């Protein structure tokens, strides 16, 4: 089997973060997180672990909800959703995310769609994985212009969930909830610390020589190129077609 493409590597990196998750929700236009969740589910199935459920929001086929668009938020509040993905126009070093727009608010010169459910789910879902493929100092900023949802909260604020990790096209960061900061836990193959530092608008802790994020094993690649891609193609045909080459 040929080596993993950068996208395949990224998918496997995200899938590894889902370890132990039984129920995962994915946004409608998030093919890489969706692929990662499907790979996680496929790996659980072949190794006989308990079944994994995935809901792709806005999808009819991959949507196990029956109580309208409120049900995702309700089930998250009930503690039934183990992992969710969020992106953001800006993400800062304290884990704050901005899905609304650049300053000044409200007349943002650059306006993004809006906060969606982030102001709630970021508090409620135990493992929120921030995913943003382009790793860029305009995205990864020191301080977001608008807080759609804060990275941490004061201790008396009810908050079972929060950021768990940040995955970009260049690196993997873990979020340290006590410190309220990101820590670099791996560079993807072909990326080096200095370039990542230059591309990141916030400071972060890191080992002197950061490890490389693990390459997908043969089984993961074979699942990804077989059943996962087939399932993926139902919802994201274009993405599935270019998966291996990208």
């Amino acid at each position, binding site marked *: 089997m040929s080596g993993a493409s950068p996208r395949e590597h990224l998918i496997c990196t995200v899938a590894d973060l889902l370890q132990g998750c039984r129920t995962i929700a994915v946004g409608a236009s998030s093919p890489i997180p969706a692929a990662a969740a499907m790979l996680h589910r496929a790996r659980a199935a072949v190794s006989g672990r308990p079944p994994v459920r995935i809901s792709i929001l806005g999808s009819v086929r991959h949507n196990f909800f*029956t109580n309208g*668009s409120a049900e995702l938020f309700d089930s998250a509040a009930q503690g039934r959703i183990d992992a969710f993905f969020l992106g953001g126009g800006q993400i800062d070093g304290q884990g704050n995310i901005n899905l609304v727009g650049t300053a000044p608010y*409200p*007349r*943002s010169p650059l306006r993004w769609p809006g906060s*969606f459910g982030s102001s709630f789910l970021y508090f409620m879902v135990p493992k929120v994985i921030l995913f943003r493929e382009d790793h860029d100092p305009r995205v990864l900023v020191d301080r977001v212009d608008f807080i759609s949802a804060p990275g941490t909260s004061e201790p008396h604020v009810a908050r079972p969930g929060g950021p768990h990790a940040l995955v970009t096209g260049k690196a993997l960061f873990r979020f340290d909830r006590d410190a309220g900061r990101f820590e670099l836990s791996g560079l993807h193959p072909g990326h080096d610390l200095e370039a990542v530092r230059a591309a990141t608008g916030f400071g972060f802790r890191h080992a002197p020589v950061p490890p490389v994020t693990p390459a997908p094993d043969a089984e993961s690649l074979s699942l990804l190129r077989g059943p996962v891609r087939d399932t993926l193609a139902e919802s994201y045909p274009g993405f599935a077609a270019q998966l291996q080459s990208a």
Partner: protein
Amino acid sequence: MSAAVPGLMTPGAMASEVHSGMRLALPVDYAGVPMALMPHLVAGGARDLDLVCVPTGGLQPDILIGAGRVRSVETSAMTLGEAGGAPCFRRAVAAGDIAVRDATCPAIHAGLMAAQKGVPFMAIRGLIGSDVLRHRPDWKVIQNPLSEVADPIVVVPPIRPDVALFHCPVADRDGNVLIGRRRELASMAYASRHTFVTVERVIDGSLFDNEQTAAGTLPALYVTGVAVAERGAWPYGLGGEYEADTAALRDYAAAARTPRGFDAWLERFVADGGMP
């Protein structure tokens, strides 16, 4: 047969029930967007509309904004999905032409739920420390009244739209409509004073005749009027009926990148009666 359906009207008559200054609830892209009303709404005179997107908006509010009919938008997001950002919305925001009440999806659901339950507020977790909350003077952080320890929580007021508009596959002879799994449409109807529904078709029987369709039915109790509009969600899709016309959405996104392009698109859209 159809003549006996309570509240049966034309799309044009339905659109004329929307008056200036009303608060309008509009559904999310995938829940049945009543696009067939748009040429009539745009041709009509209603202005200063306050839109509530349940819980996010797309083409429909963007057109209303572009056409200068909107005073404010309450929404959790505004997007054309794969076709990109909502161009008229972005322009109006940057220009300060509309008031945006940025929300988060479950807060919109909570506001509708408060209206559904007839209570003056609904609590919601999360939000504390966000700028979403900071910019909503109508929301408030209170101490949980049932807790002895510090437990701040947000309360939001009811959302009670004057009119809810959406599109469904089927209405029956009694004015009941089939919403299936799209229960946010029921929430909109429960919360709203009036609900107008465009449908692909009217059937002669009753959706209550069998329990399976009954389970997915919004009762006529909540439906003020029904209008037949085949392919009435176009260019959006309708679950179980037809897919979204992504090319048409992209055409819109490209055209509406400039005000002039939007005006030309709108003129053609109205001239075509909103049909493909």
